[in-house]
């Protein structure tokens, strides 16, 4: 058992970090709640207390915010479904060790080390309606009718950003799945094979249930990432983004840049609540699916 003196010293170990983290992260987080109840523009010396009206406006009377929320949820759904499925598929195909699979794993992981702005510029060129890679390729193989304006198409723009996001991070999620798959005892597959299970049935009855913890992890992380997709959107869409590409994080930033600091703080509060709500829903769903 640690002596009291040792405990005291151990506590001192944490003090520098507690001071910085408390002072420059937790304290502002709490101050944010205060700013959310004012009409402060961010630079004037005075401001008025407006109570909860910012918060109620954000929730009930703000088309820009609602638009950003809708875009963010579309983006979230597309990325979570697309990225999870792709990561699992790649992991299943690459779980066995071989020289080729090690090399491919390394390649698929590579985009993760790039900066979001770099990834944004790469995809900006892929999507360029006139000179971009996507339309050039489609044209070259005679599939002109599938050519599209991509980011220029307000209704689907956010989904094209989702594709870029999946390209960016699927390799990272693949690694988590590979770790999960490698923990499955080989006997389970042997038993399934003895029972005459084909490859799909092995996946369905062994791999899928056994990687449930990895799936939960991948979905939780992807969800948080989708809410944070700020850099990628600004890189692809410019600052401030058009309404079809506006998400919650960019909306908060734009509101703030327009000298509505109090209102932006209120949007941040609702942003946190939205994240908490989605996380809660996912936990519930996970419990329902896995008992």
């Amino acid at each position, binding site marked *: 058992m640690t002596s009291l003196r040792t405990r005291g010293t151990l506590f001192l170990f944490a003090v520098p970090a507690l001071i910085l983290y408390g002072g420059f992260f937790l304290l502002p987080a709490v101050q944010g709640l205060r700013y959310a109840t004012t009409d402060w523009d961010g630079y004037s010396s005075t401001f008025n207390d407006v109570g909860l009206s910012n918060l109620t406006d954000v929730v009930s009377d703000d088309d820009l915010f609602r638009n950003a929320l809708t875009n963010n949820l579309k983006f979230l759904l597309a990325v979570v479904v697309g990225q999870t499925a792709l990561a699992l598929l790649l992991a299943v195909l690459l779980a066995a060790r071989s020289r080729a699979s090690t090399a491919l794993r390394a390649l*698929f992981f590579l985009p993760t080390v790039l900066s979001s702005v770099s990834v944004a510029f790469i995809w900006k060129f892929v999507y360029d309606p006139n000179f971009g890679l996507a339309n050039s390729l489609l044209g070259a193989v005679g599939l002109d009718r599938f050519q599209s304006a991509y980011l220029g198409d307000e209704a689907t723009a956010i989904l094209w950003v989702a594709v870029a996001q999946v390209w960016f991070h699927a390799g990272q999620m693949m690694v988590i799945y590979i770790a999960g798959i490698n923990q499955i005892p080989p006997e389970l597959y042997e038993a399934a094979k003895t029972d005459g299970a084909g490859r799909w049935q092995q996946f369905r009855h062994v791999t899928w249930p056994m990687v449930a913890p990895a799936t939960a992890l991948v979905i939780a992380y992807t969800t948080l990432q989708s809410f944070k997709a700020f850099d990628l959107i600004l890189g692809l869409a410019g600052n401030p983004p058009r309404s079809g590409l506006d998400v919650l994080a960019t909306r908060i930033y734009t509101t703030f840049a327009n000298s509505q600091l109090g209102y932006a703080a209120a949007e941040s509060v609702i942003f946190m609540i939205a994240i908490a709500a989605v996380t809660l829903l996912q936990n519930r769903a996970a419990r329902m699916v896995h008992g």
Partner: protein
Amino acid sequence: MRRFVLGVYALLIVVPLVVIVGGSFKTTPELFASPFGLPKSPTLDNYTTVLAKQDMLGVLGNSLFVVSISVPVTLLLGSLVAFAVARLPRWPSRILFAIFAAGLAVPAQAVMIPQYVQFERLGLRNSLTGLILVNIVVTLPVAVFILAGFMRTLPAELYEAAELDGAGPWASYRRIAVPVSYPSLAATAIFLIVMHWNDLLYPLLFIDDPDKRTLPLALLDFQGEYLTEYPLLFTGVVVASLPMVLAYAFLQRHFVAGITAGAVKG
């Protein structure tokens, strides 16, 4: 079937990267005329423009400066907390850990506005010092999470043996915890380097002075200036990404471990 899927995805990763690197040696008309071809008469004009006119070397220097201080400091502070979490009795340990874990659920976008006000008031905005400080506090929770997760799995006897010799916790931190946690520290370091190197949010919020820009911010400024002059954008991408990609090539296993640990815990 397996080969087909893997082959297609490999092309999806490789082709855009090859086009980017090749494009950085082309003129805009050549890029548009043949995006996939090798540069016919490779030009270094884009690199001259980016490095000289845009002062990317200065920007690169800023990024290096920020990361070379923010990462070691975060590691030091985070590992001290992790050590305390691993060694303190149950309840104090849990409380300490919970304080930092709470930060994991709060995305930077939710606290950036009050932080802006605070840093402005303290005169820390528009300074690399402020950027270093904010990097440290924002990533401390992840660092504590990864490192405490590791240090908690080490047997208490390991620490106690060192302390029996009359050495205090400081000695057992330095002589036992740090050397034994080396793989975990390396993974955390890489996670932090990638996070701090690539961050756009805080530089965008804090830095006004062009001389103090870091790479992602300078790169974002390109977009406004060059619009669809893709070869220049691509050159910026190559310059900004090369250090990370080279490091990844040599330290691949550490990168995968680090970034995945950060994902799992962040």
